[in-house]
């Protein structure tokens, strides 16, 4: 048992399910351990690449430790998400440049083909199969699909506010925007998601 009241050797699901309660006693390792899975899920939902999502989380951890590791633990949560959000945006910028080049080369190689959205064409590893007829699986897949269909800022606002439990000010810090923008993004996200997800409640 650690000084923080839960075992350090094994993984405690409370760290997994609950947002990290930053306190003076929270160590950097405890914080990162508690946030890494959710960070990976947020990254994976944003970029749809499982391996790249791990890379993004790793980059975010490095950046966070280097820039904000000395800050008070109470400040860590929004700052970590801020770093990850920044890395996700960087990934999309790099990917946009790469897509422009590959798209141009692809058009040269396959003139006359129908225009297709590469994101729609990408294989979805969570496409429900026969076993995914169970209600939870179906609902989970619907949730993932709905979240992936959201614009990046709306999805980030939803995940940080609704899942991670940050308040408006913390979310604004994480997303590097005003609190008004957070409310707008969240409102639009809720509007779009409600129609798709209410049937699964």
């Amino acid at each position, binding site marked *: 048992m650690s000084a923080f009241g839960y075992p350090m050797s094994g993984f405690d699901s409370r760290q*997994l*399910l609950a947002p990290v309660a930053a306190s003076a006693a929270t160590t*950097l*390792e405890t914080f*990162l*351990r508690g946030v*890494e*899975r*959710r960070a*990976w*899920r947020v990254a994976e939902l944003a970029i749809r690449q*499982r391996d790249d999502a*791990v890379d993004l*989380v*790793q980059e975010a*951890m*490095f950046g*966070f*430790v*280097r820039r904000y*590791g000395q800050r008070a633990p109470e400040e860590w949560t929004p700052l970590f998400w801020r770093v990850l959000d920044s890395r996700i945006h960087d990934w999309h910028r790099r990917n946009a440049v790469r897509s422009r080049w590959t798209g141009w080369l692809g058009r040269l190689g396959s003139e006359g083909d129908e225009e297709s959205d590469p994101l729609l064409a990408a294989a979805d590893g969570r496409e429900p199969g026969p076993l995914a007829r169970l209600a*939870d699986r179906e*609902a*989970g897949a619907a*949730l*993932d699909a709905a979240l992936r269909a959201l614009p990046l800022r709306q999805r980030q606002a939803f*995940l940080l*506010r*609704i*899942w991670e439990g940050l308040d408006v000010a913390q979310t604004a810090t994480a997303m590097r925007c005003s609190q008004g923008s957070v409310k707008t993004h969240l409102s639009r996200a*809720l509007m779009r*998601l*409600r129609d798709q*997800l*209410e049937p*699964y*409640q």
Partner: protein
Amino acid sequence: MNDPRHEPWLERSRALLDESLHEIDAATLSRLNRARQAALGKAHAQRPLWLGLSVLGATAVLVLAFGLARQTPIPATAPTPVVAPGTQVDADADLAVSDADSDELYENLDFYAWLADAGNGGQG
């Protein structure tokens, strides 16, 4: 207005997202673990540099102070005897002789003994 976060479909969404964390494959978990350790290792590696600079600065200050202390001229006068507070000073302390005087005293000890005897005889 009610907090929208408590709507049933949102509660359900949160539960599903939480549940999805348990389905992350072992390879990804292992990579996340290594990423965390690497980030923390880097953080710890930064500390010796910071500490090293502090120790280096402290050492430089000590060396400088020692050098200055050695350059300061030491007064040629003999140090004043220190008497602990409360110690009763013997009235004859002023008569205490230096080493040179002490040698002279011992060399002429016979003379002083004769002088004392002669004095006593003269009086008696």
